[in-house]
């Protein structure tokens, strides 16, 4: 009886059923599409992030910068009188040293163990972001008894520097970025591809070997087998790597074993960044919270935080979807629900005599409410099915159109990562957006359909329950 009556009523009031179902369908389709697109944007974003920050990096832990600390302080180069080669009254001086990269703050290496011991952390690797500064210049020969001390302040824009010291002297500062790494799987090297030679290996610990970035190597005319001078030490170039994305903003010029970097920079047991891989995507937030309480002095960034460093239409899209999309779908859902509720109430009102009659012949309120709610629920589910179909079609259309989005690291971004001081030219990456419907979205769609149906049913049922059975006797309209 319930089913027969329900289906007859829906079939008989096809217009109302269609309007409610279509309203519901549009709202649900919008939710499906927005979710699919936002999943696509997230996926594109993580692809971009991977190319910038390394594959599988879910979080980074960095030292928190406090003014007066870190690598931006004045650097002192001290030359003794025997340091230079003196010829024809001019002393040629050259000294190279490793300092922490601008914006990087060293932390104790025990941070790595602390991070690794947090629940949900799959692996953690520390890196030391450094700059190799080579000071070179010429000055008039000093008198034999005097010692010339030249305090150099690292210029705000390194590399363009050169300060004028005593009369007749000329100085230049040459910098390139050096990254001390202890893992190829996690961290900056995971974002690179080997072009020539080999990657750094565990057995390289303590050895003066370096892997160079392809761009840097070609600009310096270096190849595998050559030597490169870092902090005055000769390093053998064992490999050349290329960033997975052209000009990944955070690529370093040179990568050397972590312990070697620590020793040369006089930063024993110190790291600037810990790259963290979580067990699963779903544990990232929990891990982030745990790390923050475990390491109150450090800055913990998740991919989402990292993503805020990504600019371009990709980030515009993600912001748009996060803000406008959520509001829009809420608004459309609310409109669809309201439509369903109003139509259901007006439908019940039009059937006053019918429900009055059923009450007069002995139907309980509960039985009538169930009938009304059942009809609404089926209307909602019809809308849900239609909406899912519509959503799938729209997602398919989006994927066929395959819109491309650009992404780059914003120039302002990033205390994170081995930011090479010279390479922050907001490199642009283009990714193709591909939306995908996940089972959870389908579940959400069905849930919304049921919710909408029940909501309309509840209001309609409430209206029907309030009808007096005597309404059945109202004179024939």
């Amino acid at each position: 009886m319930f089913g027969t009556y329900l289906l007859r009523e829906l079939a008989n009031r096809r217009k109302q059923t269609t309007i409610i179902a279509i309203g519901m369908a549009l709202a649900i389709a919008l939710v499906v599409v927005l979710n699919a697109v936002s999943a696509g944007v997230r996926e594109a974003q993580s692809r971009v992030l991977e190319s910038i920050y390394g594959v599988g990096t879910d979080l980074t832990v960095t030292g928190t910068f406090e003014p007066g600390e870190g690598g931006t302080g004045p650097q002192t180069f001290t030359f003794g009188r025997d340091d230079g080669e003196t010829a024809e009254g001019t002393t040629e001086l050259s000294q190279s040293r490793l300092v922490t990269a601008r914006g990087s703050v060293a932390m104790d290496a025990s941070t790595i163990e602390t991070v690794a011991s947090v629940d949900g952390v799959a692996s953690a690797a520390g890196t030391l972001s450094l700059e190799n500064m080579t000071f070179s210049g010429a000055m008039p020969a000093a008198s034999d008894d005097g010692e010339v001390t030249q305090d150099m302040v690292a210029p705000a824009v390194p590399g363009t520097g050169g300060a004028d010291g005593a009369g007749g002297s000329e100085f230049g500062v040459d910098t390139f970025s050096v990254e001390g790494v202890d893992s190829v799987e996690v961290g900056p090297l995971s974002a690179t591809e080997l072009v020539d030679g080999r990657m750094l290996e565990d057995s390289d610990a303590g050895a003066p070997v370096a892997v160079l970035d392809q761009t840097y190597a070609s600009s310096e005319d270096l190849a595998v087998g050559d030597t490169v001078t870092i902090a005055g030490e000769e390093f053998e170039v064992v490999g050349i790597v290329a960033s997975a994305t052209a000009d990944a903003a955070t690529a370093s010029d040179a990568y050397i074993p972590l312990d070697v970097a620590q020793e040369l920079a006089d930063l024993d047991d110190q790291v600037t960044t810990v790259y963290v891989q979580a067990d699963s995507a779903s544990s990232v937030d929990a891990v982030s919270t745990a790390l923050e309480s475990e390491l109150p002095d450090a800055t913990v960034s998740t991919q989402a935080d990292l993503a805020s460093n990504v600019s371009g239409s990709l980030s515009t899209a993600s912001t748009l979807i996060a803000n406008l999309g959520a509001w829009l779908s809420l608004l459309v859902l609310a409109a669809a629900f309201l439509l369903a509720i109003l139509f259901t109430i007006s439908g019940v009102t039009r059937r006053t005599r019918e429900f009055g009659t059923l009450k007069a012949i002995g139907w309980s309120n509960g039985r009538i409410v169930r009938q009304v709610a059942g009809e609404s629920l089926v209307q909602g589910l019809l809308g849900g099915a239609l909406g899912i179909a519509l959503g799938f079609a729209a997602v398919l259309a989006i994927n066929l159109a395959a819109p491309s989005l650009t992404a780059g690291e914003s120039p302002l971004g990033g205390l994170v990562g081995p930011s090479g001081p010279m390479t922050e030219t907001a490199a642009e990456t283009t990714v193709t957006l591909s939306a995908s419907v996940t089972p959870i979205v389908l579940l959400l769609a069905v849930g919304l359909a049921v919710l909408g149906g029940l909501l309309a049913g509840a209001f309609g049922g409430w209206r029907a329950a309030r009808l007096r059975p005597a309404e059945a006797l109202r004179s024939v309209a």
Partner: protein
Amino acid sequence: MYTLTKVGKTYRQGQRTVTALKDVDLVIPQGQLVAIQGPTGGGKSTLLQLLGALERPTSGSIGLGSSVLSSLADRRLAKVRSHQIGFVFQGFNLIPTLTAQENVETALEPFRLKTDARRRRARESLESVGLGDRGGHLPAELSGGQQQRVAIARALVKEPEVLLADEPTGNLDEETRDDIMELLEGLWRDRGLTVVIVTHDTAVARRAERRLHIKQGRLTER
């Protein structure tokens, strides 16, 4: 058997109170055929609603058998309606989307019968009003007289103690009106039902055992 003592019913209409029934004392023995007549607005339908457990009186008490309808909760009133009372309306009040057979079955819904039993009883009831071959028709496919027969079958399928009819022939032509009256009389005689019929029509009222008159909410015997 109905026992009404000092029954009054007033309706609120905004600021005004309308007195639809006043001080009605009435006993209807089981098995009686009663006709109620009176001018429009006199209170006939109101009395029938009280007898039919659709409404509670504003004052006084109404007993049906051992139940005191005037003091039952809504849920219990629904049960009285579903089990003890059959109602026939002037406008037939069939569900337009359901067939004749299904309309009759709606009255059995509160009994929670098995589908087979429900179908069989509804079919038998339709046969008893002479519509055994029309079970699959929608109300719109039936004449007025046939629709009222379906409504009577719906009222009787639960085998009630009482059949209440509010101007059951009011929407029918003369010929059909006589058919329906004959049907009701026959059922009354065969089943020992208490039947209360509200009617304008003196020809119809004459066939009753007992005639009551309501005017301005006051009940008088004829």
